[in-house]
């Protein structure tokens, strides 16, 4: 079974600071996703990473993928309060019955404070 581990699970950071969330997964996969979830809301897709060395950026968020290390990072630059949310990484499990099932990490609850 493909396992996905995120850390940290909780993160409190000051506005203007930088920080990185890490996502490790246990077996080979072709796709890794990052999502944002606000309280009481559904999931918003942030990034899809498809290949080794892939890097994508949107605003203050940048995601990267190292398939050899089975590691993805989500880097936050100069955090602002609006980034407060829970961030999930999810990895496509090729060995699932459908071949496209997503296995999720436990999520990182981010709080950005003044």
């Amino acid at each position: 079974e493909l396992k996905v581990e995120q850390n940290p699970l909780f993160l409190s950071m000051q506005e203007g600071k930088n920080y990185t969330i890490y996502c490790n997964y246990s077996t080979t996969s072709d796709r890794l996703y990052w999502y944002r979830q606000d309280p009481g809301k559904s999931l918003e897709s942030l990034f899809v990473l498809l290949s080794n060395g892939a890097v994508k950026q949107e605003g203050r968020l940048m995601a990267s993928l190292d398939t050899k290390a089975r590691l993805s990072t989500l880097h936050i630059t100069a955090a602002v309060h609006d980034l407060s949310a829970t961030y999930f990484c999810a990895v496509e499990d090729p060995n699932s019955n459908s071949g496209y099932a997503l296995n999720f990490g436990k999520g990182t609850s981010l709080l950005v404070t003044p």
Partner: protein
Amino acid sequence: SAVISQKPSRDICQRGTSLTIQCQVDSQVTMMFWYRQQPGQSLTLIATANQGSEATYESGFVIDKFPISRPNLTFSTLTVSNMSPEDSSIYLCRTMDSYNEQFFGPGTRLTVL
């Protein structure tokens, strides 16, 4: 991008009853999945809804408890049967089209008393 709706958006139900959740997409999709998110937890895949055939369930989930239908390429239902308070969760539909574009529905928040 696909527009996904789920009905109901939320419900409060009595234990022992059943609730059917609908997922409707505005375009044809190849795959539809049902996920559960228990309070404060991550998402867990319940099953893959297959058009015209029985759903494919993940470990720990069975058809008697979570019957699923998918009559066409734009619609699926998930029933939560004989509910208990442990079934209180957000249930989310996820779709994937032939270009591998995938989206989550807005979710159904279920509370079982």
